[in-house]
């Protein structure tokens, strides 16, 4: 096999019908990066038998883990929501469809919403199976909405090379954002944010005839948002001191047919740092970190609503 550059790589995903059984990709996506990896916890034989060397390795548990970083495309992102610790409701009689998430609280991923992820690196095909989204981190890079999904899965095997068909949808760039704090009150003093939901997925090996984990389970959920704002009054700062919950909404929209909206209905400021005075020319800014708490009115700590022409069934 000839050498090649990483630009020629591809990644495609498909929902599995039976968790852990490979399905050829049905959706391809342009990548910013990926780091999917087969990880094995090898038992190294360090027994006492007159030798100072490692005697050899014996199979230990294995699983799949790594990140997929993408530009957020409205036709791609919902697939990862389905594979995350959410139930996803789909509405709309025809395109565009609306996908609304509700986080759930159990240990198991929703059945039949595990992913097979096919990665081609220098023409070599890696088929990762039983994959779920453990965490989603969303931010902006030079105004473009990007997201990193941390993946935990079961196993990997080589597969036949797919023929990629690439979406031609475009990312959300500068000039498409509406940020409300609280949701109905648009603020214009935020230049960057980072949202993260981490459901702490763990591969669970069990003694059986396979090395792959028996299942992947979720654990405690942590939902945070950090923003940088121009500092102009004490109002928000005092709300921080009082632990006042606020709704926060970030909408990236290219119109009625294509949008991604994130809402934290009961966000409480965990940290509020007003920029220290130390540089004559710098703006006085504030760095705020929110913890999303469970909102009894909506039964959610956070929610994604994606409007797209993509029809996911």
């Amino acid at each position, binding site marked *: 096999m000839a050498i090649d550059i990483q630009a020629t790589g591809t990644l495609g995903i*498909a*929902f*599995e*019908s*039976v*968790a852990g*059984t*490979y*399905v*050829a*990709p*049905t*959706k391809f996506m342009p990548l910013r990066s990926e780091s999917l990896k087969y990880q094995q916890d090898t038992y190294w034989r360090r027994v006492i038998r007159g030798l100072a060397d490692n005697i050899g390795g014996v199979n230990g548990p294995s699983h799949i883990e790594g990140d997929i970083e993408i530009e957020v495309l*409205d*036709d791609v992102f919902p697939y990862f929501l389905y594979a995350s610790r959410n*139930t*996803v*409701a*789909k*509405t*709309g*009689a*025809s*395109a*565009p*469809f609306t996908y609304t998430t509700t986080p759930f609280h159990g240990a*198991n*991923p*929703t*059945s*039949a*919403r*595990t992913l097979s992820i096919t990665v081609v690196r220098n*023409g070599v095909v890696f088929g990762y199976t039983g994959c779920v989204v453990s965490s989603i981190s969303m931010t902006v890079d030079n105004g473009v909405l990007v997201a990193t999904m941390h993946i935990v899965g079961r196993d990997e095997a080589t597969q036949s*090379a797919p*023929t*990629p*068909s*690439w*979406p*031609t*949808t*475009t990312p959300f760039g500068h000039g498409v954002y509406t940020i409300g704090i609280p949701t109905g009150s648009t603020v214009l003093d935020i230049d960057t944010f980072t949202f993260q939901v981490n459901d702490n997925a763990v591969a669970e090996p069990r003694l059986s005839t396979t090395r792959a984990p*028996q*299942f992947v389970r979720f654990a405690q959920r942590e939902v945070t948002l950090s923003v940088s704002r121009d500092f102009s009054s004490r109002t928000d700062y005092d709300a921080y001191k009082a632990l006042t919950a606020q709704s926060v909404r970030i909408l990236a929209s*290219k*119109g*009625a*047919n*294509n949008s991604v909206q994130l809402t934290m209905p009961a966000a409480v400021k965990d940290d509020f740092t007003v920029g220290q005075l130390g540089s004559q020319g710098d703006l006085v800014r504030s760095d705020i970190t929110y913890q999303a708490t469970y909102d009894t009115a909506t039964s959610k700590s956070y929610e994604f609503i994606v409007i*797209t*022409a*993509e*029809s*996911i*069934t």
Partner: protein
Amino acid sequence: MASVKVDLPNMPKYSDLNEDQIANGDGVVQIDYLGTFKNGETTDVDDAVVAVWSVNTGKDWPESGTLVIDHSEANEQRKNALDDLRKNDPEVYNALMADLARQKLLDTSGTAENNVVADVVVEAPVEIPQAETPAAGGTDSTPPAKADTNTEAAS
């Protein structure tokens, strides 16, 4: 003349889209070395383009003359996986089918019937044979084995 047919059920047909959706790039896929194609349509491609595609991908053009971009391979794999599960682990299969039926409640778009996973519900639920119970008056007092109801393997 070679052609490319794009029939992707997860994308809208190009002919059904409005101007905004077309401007966003919906309903169109791009295939390396071949070009851009509208979903739901069959488009002719030049032999020279096919040759470039073949050299760069290392693949032969289909003998039928039409490269079909669809989900048939994935659908077949899904069906086979479910068939295997149904034969080998009917309890897990039944639990999975019940879960899928509940998930369909979340889809009010009218497109849930396109769900290939749900469509391969063959004869669910599978009838699961009960463990044999000792005959009345028998001396064996061992209770019948309890079926394993752990469904985590399917999740």
